[in-house]
């Protein structure tokens, strides 16, 4: 699959998106709700019509191709299993509705359903109804149903969104393992940055209908293209600053100026809690220290703000009430 370009100007749900996904690749569309990622997925599936632009799958233009002829597997956040059909009938549905000429025989369909039940680790569950399954089991059945038609692309719309934390984690691992075995081109929509970074080969960070950055998880984590991407990937502190002759002076936080490789003018500094270093003196005061968990967290009241810092392993935590300062030398700078 190559070169998806999509313009959707009227509602601006998705604007000027250009993305290509390699065959067998696992791409995550990551963004806050309302960023257009689900709309983009529905455009690819053909459930939504684009106002402009083209979607190509395997080099074939999908313009005017109805959803049922696109051969994409779509998995919904709330499973959307057929509630009046058994698990086996759900999985077989996509095969049974084929025109007679391309429809597998009953025995072939039954055999494929059995294989898929094994694949989703639910052998013997074929006779049950969806309302007799747990959330995680239902989502695996929904996945098997989508896989049954041997889709060219697998589209996952927040597939773990309705599950609790432990099930979500297990299913995530299992899905990545599955992808490593079958190498099906997969696009995952999620608002959970940990999920996207853990699962995907590449991550496309979306905001307000636009793609802000595309890259491997390491690339987007280590080198965020802008302040939005940086802020969306995990907790971070934003500080406004003015840059003059390569030196950034912070305007809304009393911290020492640090070098910044940006042209003169207004800018914004973004820094993660573990990148902030604590100094023995300065305008701040230690407000709270939390020693729970593997790393110590310190809350510092400075200026009018409350800043959270994660101490490096082995560091001696400061006393509550002690004076302190912040070292923002490891911040990344972006034009304001």
């Amino acid at each position: 699959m190559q070169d998806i370009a999509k313009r959707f100007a009227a509602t601006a749900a998705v604007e000027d998106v250009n993305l290509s996904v390699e065959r067998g690749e696992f791409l995550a569309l990551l963004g806050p709700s309302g960023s257009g990622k689900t709309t983009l997925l529905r455009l690819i599936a053909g459930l939504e019509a684009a106002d402009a632009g083209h979607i190509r799958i395997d080099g074939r233009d999908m313009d005017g191709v109805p959803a049922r002829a696109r051969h994409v597997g779509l998995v919904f956040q709330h499973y959307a299993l057929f509630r009046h059909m058994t698990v086996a009938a759900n999985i077989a549905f996509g095969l049974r509705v084929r025109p007679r000429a391309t429809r597998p025989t009953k025995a072939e369909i039954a055999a494929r359903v059995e294989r898929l039940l094994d694949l989703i680790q639910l052998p013997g569950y074929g006779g049950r109804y969806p309302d007799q399954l747990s959330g995680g089991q239902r989502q695996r059945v929904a996945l098997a149903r989508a896989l049954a038609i041997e889709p060219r692309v697998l589209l996952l719309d927040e597939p773990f969104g309705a599950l609790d934390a432990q099930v979500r984690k297990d299913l995530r691992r299992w899905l990545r393992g599955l992808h490593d075995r079958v190498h099906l081109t997969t696009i995952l929509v999620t608002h959970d940055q940990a999920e996207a970074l853990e699962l995907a080969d590449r991550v496309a960070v979306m905001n307000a209908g636009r793609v802000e950055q595309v890259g491997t998880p390491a690339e987007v984590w280590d080198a965020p293209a802008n302040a939005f991407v940086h802020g969306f990937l995990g907790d971070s502190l934003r500080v406004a600053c003015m840059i003059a002759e390569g030196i950034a002076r912070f305007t809304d936080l009393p911290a020492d100026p640090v070098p910044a490789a940006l042209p003169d003018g207004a800018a914004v500094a973004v820094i993660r809690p573990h990148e902030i270093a604590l100094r023995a003196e300065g305008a701040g005061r230690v407000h709270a220290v939390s020693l729970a968990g593997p790393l110590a967290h310190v809350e510092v009241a400075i200026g009018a703000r409350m800043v959270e810092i994660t101490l490096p392993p082995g560091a001696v935590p400061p006393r509550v009430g002690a004076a302190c300062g912040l070292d923002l030398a490891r911040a990344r700078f972006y034009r304001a």
Partner: protein
Amino acid sequence: MTAGVQGGVGLRAPGWERWLAIGLALLVLLVLLVLPLALVFAEALSRGWAGVASALADPDAQSAIRLTLLVAAITVPVNTLGGLAAAWCIARFRFPGRGLLLTIIELPLTISPVISGLVWVLLFGRNGWFGPALGRADIQIVFALPGLVLATLFVTFPFVLRAILPLMQAQGSAEEQAAITLGAPAWRVFLHVTLPNIRFALLQGVLLCNARAMGEFGAVAVVSGRIRGLTNTMPLHIEATYNDYQAQAAFAVAALLALLALVTLAARAGLEWGTRRER
């Protein structure tokens, strides 16, 4: 559901108060519903089964029964299809005028049945809008079967729609979308996904629609012209014979009509559990 359970527990009154309330409700039920209905059957049988048989064998009664069944046989399928189509449009699409449509669909339930009949006379009667044109073409609508069908269609339209619309809205369209992406053509989506999900509610709506189609009096009375043996339906025939002081004959037909209603009600009750399962 939780709230209902909690309410039930919280409101459990001490013994005698509870029995008083239940007794009162049963008394009202007995006086207002059971007694009149029992009276219909008692009066019908006042001259024994032979009396009932002869009343039902009367040619005018036979014609009324046939006409009622014919009107129901036409209106129920039409309104089932119409109700399905309307519910599907309203539940699945956003379009201008959707809110207005929702209100208009309730109209037959809120306006008097007499008016529901009168509109057709105003449209198609001899002095109505299309009266002269229809007269030239020699097409009879009012005081004939088409008028009866139109009036009944109008009165019974909301039943199927109201039975299935809330369910379709609650279920959403995700299952249908899933079916589409799995390659199902539209008719298969409808047959294998949409219809099975609403089947019990749909049947309930059809039963209610049928009960009303057979029992409607007001709207039908206006457009029928009440020609005995020709345009009288069962309810109209009952009134006509009663006005002729043939009380037993009137009650015999009434008993048959009531029996149809009771069968409908029983069928509906049998379906209740199925609908609950769907939700």
